[in-house]
């Protein structure tokens, strides 16, 4: 197995539950107990209403491609294995997240339905990715 050389998430006290869940292959989001908004990326207070009553919820993992690009030449040497599909995925619960679509670049379309999959890039790090649904 070759060494993984791409940037890895370094969890903060705020985000640690998110990354612990991805290692269990679960997609979780914070949800505000006051205004009921789903929140991504993790926060200490709700970015909509500033409530601190936030709880983690497992979500559906379904969504659609809000937009995407095929990176043919990356700005960082770590991604010299381009091309890869970078996308903004709009989750069924509302929030958008940056991720990769695991599919042939020519098959990806704006608004395409996708579902979550998990990439165990190292024994300690699991990234959230998406594939065509």
């Amino acid at each position, binding site marked *: 197995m070759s060494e993984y050389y791409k940037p890895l998430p370094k*969890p903060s006290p705020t985000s640690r539950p998110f990354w612990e869940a991805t290692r269990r292959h679960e997609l979780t989001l914070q949800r505000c107990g006051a205004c009921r908004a789903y929140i991504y990326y993790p926060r200490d207070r709700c970015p909509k209403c500033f409530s601190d009553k936030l709880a983690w919820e497992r979500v559906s993992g379904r969504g659609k491609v809000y*937009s995407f690009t*095929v*990176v043919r030449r990356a700005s960082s040497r770590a991604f010299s294995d381009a091309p890869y599909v970078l996308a*903004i995925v709009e989750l069924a619960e509302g929030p*958008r997240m*940056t991720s990769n679509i695991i599919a042939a670049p020519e098959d990806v379309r704006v608004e395409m339905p996708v579902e979550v999959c998990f990439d165990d890039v190292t024994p300690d790090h699991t990234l959230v990715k998406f594939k065509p649904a």
Partner: protein
Amino acid sequence: MSLKGKAAAIGIGELKPVKEPGDLTALGLMAQVAAEAIADAGLEKKDIDGFLVGVPFSDPGMIYPASAAEVLGLNVRMLNQVDIGGASPAGMIWRAAAAIDAGMCNAVLCIVADLNKVGDQRPPVISVQREFEAPYGNIGANCGYAMIAHRHMHEYGTTARQMAKVAVDQRTSALKNPLATFNDKALTIDDVLNSRMIVDPLHLYEIVSPVSGGAAIIVASPEVAKRTKNPPIWLLGAGEYANHSTITYAPSITESPIKPAAAAAFKMAGLQPKDMDLACPYDCYTITVIVTLEDAGFCKKGEGGPFVMEHDLTYAGDFPCNTHGGQLSFGQPGLAGGMSHVTEAIRQLMGRGGERQVKGAALGYVNGNGGIMSEQSSLVLERRS
């Protein structure tokens, strides 16, 4: 409260960008453009009593403004750094005017310079971007703008040819700009579309090239402006807005914060987009210009693509736009890329456009854009007859 007519740009300094920085330093370039701008305004160094500076990527550091002011040998009553990405130069103009209007100072040196290389220390990226963007390869600006372009094409039917037209017309103007990096060869739409695809749907010629250079602008009080040798270019309106940093978390990726920024600038000026004689919208990518023209109100939302096809955007055209060539042809010397839109508007309004002079230009619109369509700073500038 308004900044309308409270201060004017009276002098500019700008270097022709170079591709290879060699032995240049960002601070050295700042000294060069500072001297040029002060002389252009007909002032002396001792007249400068305000200082706004952008921190160069090639030599970043804390407590930057005093350090740079010391290198330049300035004694100032107001100093600060402006850190709103590519919107910093436009943002400096109204901040300078506000400080002057508040009585804090009389003549502000606004300055940016950078080298096309990474220094000993990289400016740090904020932790949430390192954590939630970088692992997926969302690094640099290309990806975000490519995703804006794809979504714009999806929502409004914008085409690759429409986006390419922006680069083509701006290049035509650049051929008349001795300072532009790319000023030796005209472009066609097919040239743009046949250039290498970098991040779908954006081709190489739709993406700015990093270069080294610098620029400076002197913003002065009405009293100081009276004794300058140049026609003062008055700030009539300014507006600023931001609602996201990473484009993923923007409310919409096709409708930008330029809308409220431009609306505020036009409202302060008491003017409308149709009153402008030229537009200088930030153009890190072709799609940036299309979105800016829509959100600033030069055309309806979604009609930016047809608009750029129907109008001649060159200096001689019916809608002069980025007559210096835009950054796409001028090059992007760090933050000085964003300042090139401001210097060009000032130059044109002063009547110093040379072979690319827009005839009778009296009113100009400038937009500065930071990050991925994040920070926006719009200006309306006027030469009074």
